[in-house]
């Protein structure tokens, strides 16, 4: 039954809403003025630069979106923020890297080119293998993460789960550093997927490179998102996941094996993060134990921005954040090094102005 809300709390809530709106308007006005000033009045950058920024933002945003979905799925089902999710993505990135490394040392000579290796002899198969390996590693990591670290705490207070997640994140990061060493590793792609190769288009008299790796990442992340959406909306497992998210006890009464659904949710989240990790390897080209940290936090920001628990919200949030981060520094005329600050400012702003996110609804009391 609904608890009656007293008038004084009601007024306080209203006041709070006004303050939020006011802060929102002030900040939007400032941003608008700033961007107008830089982009329209100063004309520092040509159209080609904006296209280049926008494109790299979309590509990065696709990866953020894939990772953000994992935060949102897990939150929806367990009401916890899985802060080790970035590390799950990092493991996937290593999976991709090592697959390429191994394949590069398998000789596949032909009469025309006796030095040929497997990686360049079968580039598409190699990429496919990299994704299979990366996704498998991350999905497995997600599965065991839940089973070992979170399941024993199913009925513990939420804060304990959160601390455990942060602990798991640190452990995974350090484990990766011990195993693979702290230095950054260059990911060597098959030659056809060279990071400098791509289509060149002309924008306002200047060339803009649309890299193959970028297009590949963007297309693949879009396909995976569509696939996930179909899974959640149209399949029996997806329905069970939504049922568990909406009402765990009633899901039990329908015959849903809730533990199994939670496990599968972590597997799916891990798989998507793994795919993002392999994309990161292929497109960004550098991996180490720290690779998952920033994308992880940014994807978390994206999930909050879109409305935590809301799947389309996580997708939208991810893409938006990628784009904002890419064009933000130039748009506001600030140092490019500050792009990470933008993401975290957004997190703080969203939490102040609209804690429920863009597409999120107000969390019901029952859920909190």
């Amino acid at each position, binding site marked *: 039954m609904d608890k009656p809300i007293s008038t004084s709390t009601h007024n306080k809530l209203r006041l709070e809403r006004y303050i939020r709106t006011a802060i929102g308007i002030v900040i939007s006005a400032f941003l608008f003025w700033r961007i107008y000033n830089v982009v329209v009045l100063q004309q520092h950058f040509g159209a080609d630069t904006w296209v280049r920024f926008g494109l790299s933002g979309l590509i990065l945003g696709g990866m953020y979106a894939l990772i953000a979905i994992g935060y949102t799925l897990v939150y929806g089902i367990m009401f916890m923020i899985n802060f080790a999710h970035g590390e799950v993505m990092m493991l996937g990135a290593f999976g991709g890297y090592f697959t390429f490394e191994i394949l590069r040392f398998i000789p596949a000579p032909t009469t025309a080119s006796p030095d040929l290796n497997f990686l360049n002899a079968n580039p598409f198969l190699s990429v496919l293998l990299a994704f299979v390996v990366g996704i498998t590693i991350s999905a497995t990591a997600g599965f065991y993460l839940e089973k070992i670290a979170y399941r024993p705490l199913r009925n513990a207070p939420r804060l304990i789960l959160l601390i455990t997640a942060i602990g798991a994140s640190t452990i995974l990061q350090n484990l990766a550093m011990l195993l693979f060493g702290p230095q950054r590793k260059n990911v060597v792609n098959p030659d056809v997927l060279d990071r400098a190769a791509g289509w060149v288009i002309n924008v306002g008299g200047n060339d803009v490179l649309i890299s193959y790796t970028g297009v590949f990442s963007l297309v693949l992340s879009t396909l995976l998102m569509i696939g996930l959406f179909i899974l959640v909306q149209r399949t029996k497992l997806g329905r069970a996941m939504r049922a568990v998210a909406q009402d765990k006890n*009633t899901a039990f*009464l329908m015959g849903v094996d*809730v533990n199994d659904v939670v496990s599968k949710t972590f597997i799916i989240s891990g798989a998507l993060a793994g795919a993002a990790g392999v994309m990161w390897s292929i497109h960004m080209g550098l991996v180490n134990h720290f690779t998952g940290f920033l994308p992880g936090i940014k994807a978390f920001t994206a999930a909050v921005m879109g409305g935590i628990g809301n799947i389309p919200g996580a997708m939208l949030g991810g893409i938006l954040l990628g784009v904002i981060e890419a064009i933000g520094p130039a748009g506001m005329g600030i140092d490019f090094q500050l792009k990470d600050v933008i993401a975290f400012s957004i997190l703080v702003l969203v939490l102040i102005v609209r804690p429920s996110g863009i597409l999120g609804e107000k969390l019901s009391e029952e859920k909190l």
Partner: protein
Amino acid sequence: MMLHVENLQVYYGAIHALKGVSFHLDKGEVVALIGANGAGKSTVLKTISGLLRPREGSVTFEGQVLEEVPPQDIVRKGVIHVPEGRKIFPRMTVTENLEMGAYIHADRAAINRDMESVFERFPRLKERRNQLGGTLSGGEQQMLAIGRGLMAHPSLLLLDEPSMGLSPLLVEQIFDIIQDINEQGTSILLVEQNAQMALAIADRAYVLETGKIVMQGTGDDLLQDSSVIEAYLGGH
């Protein structure tokens, strides 16, 4: 004996909610469990369906002991619990809610047939089939909750206050439907605050008071009983 509950002791932390509840239900019966707020009626149903574990005592259904079986497997034995407050999945459509009811079944054609028969019983649900559960009226949600329960093919249906918050006309209807479901072969354990209606359709009934069964008898007997009339039928 289809269902046999023996000396149930159930706690919520330190709160002793059931203090040795025993009763039984025979195949084909409608058994009512009546009692005031907080008597422990819902607790009994939750313990049978496995959402709660008894500290002591046993639940036996068709010769099988249930209290160690996880709730999702109890459903597969044919014990279906329609919980208090309907508990419709609010962000799923009517059709999806019914699909969830059939979660334990795989035969697509049979599920579709069952859905049609639910729609036949509740034409209102058919009109609203693509509407989100959370936007239905209380009465419609109750119909959906019962329909969702039927999708599982219960042999024993546990109904927790199906008449709660409904208009008298709708209460009448819901009780007719319950009787009809029973006539088609489903045994029913009915928890109700509306003792009048519940006793009228029950073969037998138990009165629960602060975690103990204090009275039992046929529905008609209890309807005549002066202390029941005093306590639960508004006394005359």
